[in-house]
């Protein structure tokens, strides 16, 4: 499958910017650098859109514009938390007003498929529309569904994306679960001093996938694979090895590995294990210091990989023009995913 275009709204301003000077934060929470939405979306529609919807719809519209596609054959989104701000707004009002005098907008916007639905509404797209909401697989499920539609010839272009947001409330509640770093740390340093906790992140990334090459594609998405709750490091290793085997490639064919370390020493143990067992001597880069940890961060990683293959440039690395990239990430050691990409 070809990635014809890719657009993202993330805690990084742009790919060229993060190559030059990645945005730095000293907080355990990375918020997105957001565009002037009025330049991308109809101002009359923006008034009702909350944060996540503006992010998702804008990234999608930029993606479609870049691909030169007005009406994709399918729109598929992945989001683990859905529209948190709207959910909180309605829930708070409901509690404060004791179920009286509630207004509909926040409720309507809180449904998980609002991003995909708004995109369809804006471009009047009557085609297949779906939203996956499965935690650390939300984006992967969306990708797999997109690939499957393309393979079945039910679609020739699919707009697919992953999006999740942070709100003050969500950050507080997740913090209470002990997920994040307690002491201030620069996002660019999270891998340097092993400690517990990661940093919270958010973002939206959308892609236009097609079975046909356009001559101007970012990259080829060769394969996507997921595995769930592996029982130990050996099962992780076996899944990765089987994946490579199924793609008829050896570790030596891979030029670059993008891995999902998140700075939490417990979480990152798997990556150092796998790195030693399977990838000694390979060029490996991280990505979560750029976007934070959240269930659909792999969408940011795919955007990063696509841009690396298109431009030939890798952040912090002298190596240029990689031809094959392997992506490996796990979310809380429950949802594990692998992507294989090639240069066009």
């Amino acid at each position, binding site marked *: 499958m070809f990635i014809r275009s890719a657009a993202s709204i993330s805690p990084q301003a742009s790919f060229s910017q993060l190559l030059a000077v990645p945005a730095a934060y000293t907080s355990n929470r990375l918020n997105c650098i957001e565009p002037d939405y009025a330049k991308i979306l109809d101002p009359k529609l923006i008034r009702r859109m909350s944060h996540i919807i503006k992010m998702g719809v804008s990234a999608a519209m930029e993606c479609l514009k870049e691909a030169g596609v007005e009406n994709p054959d399918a729109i598929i989104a992945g989001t683990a938390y859905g529209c948190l701000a709207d*959910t909180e707004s309605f829930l708070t009002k409901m509690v404060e007003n004791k179920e009286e005098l509630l207004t509909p907008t926040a409720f309507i916007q809180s449904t998980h498929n609002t991003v995909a639905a708004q995109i369809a*509404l804006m471009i009047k797209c*009557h085609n297949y529309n779906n939203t996956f909401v499965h935690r650390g697989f939300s984006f992967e499920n969306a990708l797999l569904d997109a690939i499957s539609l393309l393979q079945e010839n039910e679609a020739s272009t699919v707009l697919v994306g992953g999006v999740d947001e942070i709100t003050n409330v969500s950050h507080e*509640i997740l913090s209470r679960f002990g997920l994040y770093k307690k002491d201030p740390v620069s996002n660019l340093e999270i891998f340097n001093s092993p400690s517990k906790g990661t940093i919270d992140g958010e973002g939206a990334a959308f892609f236009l996938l097609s079975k046909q090459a356009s001559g101007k594609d970012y990259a080829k998405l060769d394969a996507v694979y997921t595995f769930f709750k592996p029982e130990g490091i050996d099962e992780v290793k076996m899944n990765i090895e089987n994946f490579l085997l199924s793609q008829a490639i050896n570790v030596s064919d891979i030029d670059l590995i993008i891995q999902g370390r998140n700075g939490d020493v417990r979480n990152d143990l798997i990556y150092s294990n796998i790195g030693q067992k399977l990838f000694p001597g390979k060029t490996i880069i991280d990505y979560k210091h750029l976007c934070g940890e959240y269930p659909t961060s792999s969408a940011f990683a795919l955007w990063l990989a696509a841009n690396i293959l298109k431009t030939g440039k890798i952040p912090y690395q002298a190596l240029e023009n990689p031809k094959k990239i392997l992506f490996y990430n796990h979310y809380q050691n429950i949802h594990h995913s692998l992507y294989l990409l090639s240069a066009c």
Partner: protein
Amino acid sequence: MSAPVFIAGTGIISAIGNNTAENLASLEQEKAGMGEMRFLNSIHRQRLPVAEVKHSNSELAEMAEMPAHVSRTALLSAIAAKEALADAAIENFHELRTGFISANTVGGMDKTENFFPEFLSNHARGRLRSVVHHECGAVTELVADKLAIKNYVSTISTACSSSANSIFCGARLIKQNILDVVIAGGTDALAKFTLNGFNTLMILDNKYCQPFDENRRGLNLGEGAGYVVLVSEKVAAKLAKKPACTLSGYCNANDAYHQTASSPEGTGSFLAMKGAMQKSNIKPADISYINLHGTGTQNNDIAEGTAIKLLFEKDFPPMSSTKSFTGHTLGASGGVEAVFSVLSIQHGLIYPNLRFQTQMKELPFAPETKFSKGNQVNHVLSNSFGFGGNCSSLIFSKT
């Protein structure tokens, strides 16, 4: 890619019964499940009838064999999914490539909304246990773990078409030879969040709903879970109980008209039904029964009715909305109604549209008002249309 997908088993829990047999009995006896709120604690209790599953959380927990503090959404899901799996009686289940695709819209909100008042008063308060399964996907995983399914576990959330989308997503995974068996469908429990949300839209009926009636007033919210077990031809061939039907057609289309209202011509509904029939390779005249989305709102029923008028033109098959029995079970409705559709084929049943009195003046047809069995039911069309213009239609066909 034209490999058939068989339905090997069904599982359901709703306001009209705790399992398939009980639901069937209620349908036959024309006994609706609406009533006064017993388990949900809301100020709207006296005013709004709902179709609750007739058990407390602790009773459901016993039936589900899960801890009582778990979200009601997960409890309902576990009960129905276990029944479906048992019904399918697949001998070497754990050696096959299996999947669980469960849809829901509310996730663990029934617990979160009880956490929130304490949290709002003091951000350090509120039991974290209440929000750990807030996400839609977390509810699914509780049940996937119970069923010991690992190959493919996923959750879809597209409002009222959610579980219909789960079902045809599962079917495609089987057709593409990625999985052998998929338990697909959905679940949703009543929560104050949804009840109040729908109330702000002013589409709730304060009497028992009358879908497709000229004087309809709105919908009654319900809760429940419904799953079908989809299997490949190879697995079907080895089953002791031969499957009575296949999922022969499906389609998802988007109305792209408005966030919550359907277009007057029912564009999304029309495209979904037409697409499903095309996939199934059948004509409108081949449809034996339509299980309508039929929520009872002014908007849905006219849009859906108009789409049916345009698509079928003159020979309208028998049709009814079983939401007149179960209420609108939101994320579970596609799954619940898929089970009813399968039973319709298995036993030749046509369900009544309860409390129907006056034909809608815009439509040249009216729904069935009496339950009947022994009918020749070859193809059933089941509609599920949700917010965000998400329209899905499924077609079940006799083997």
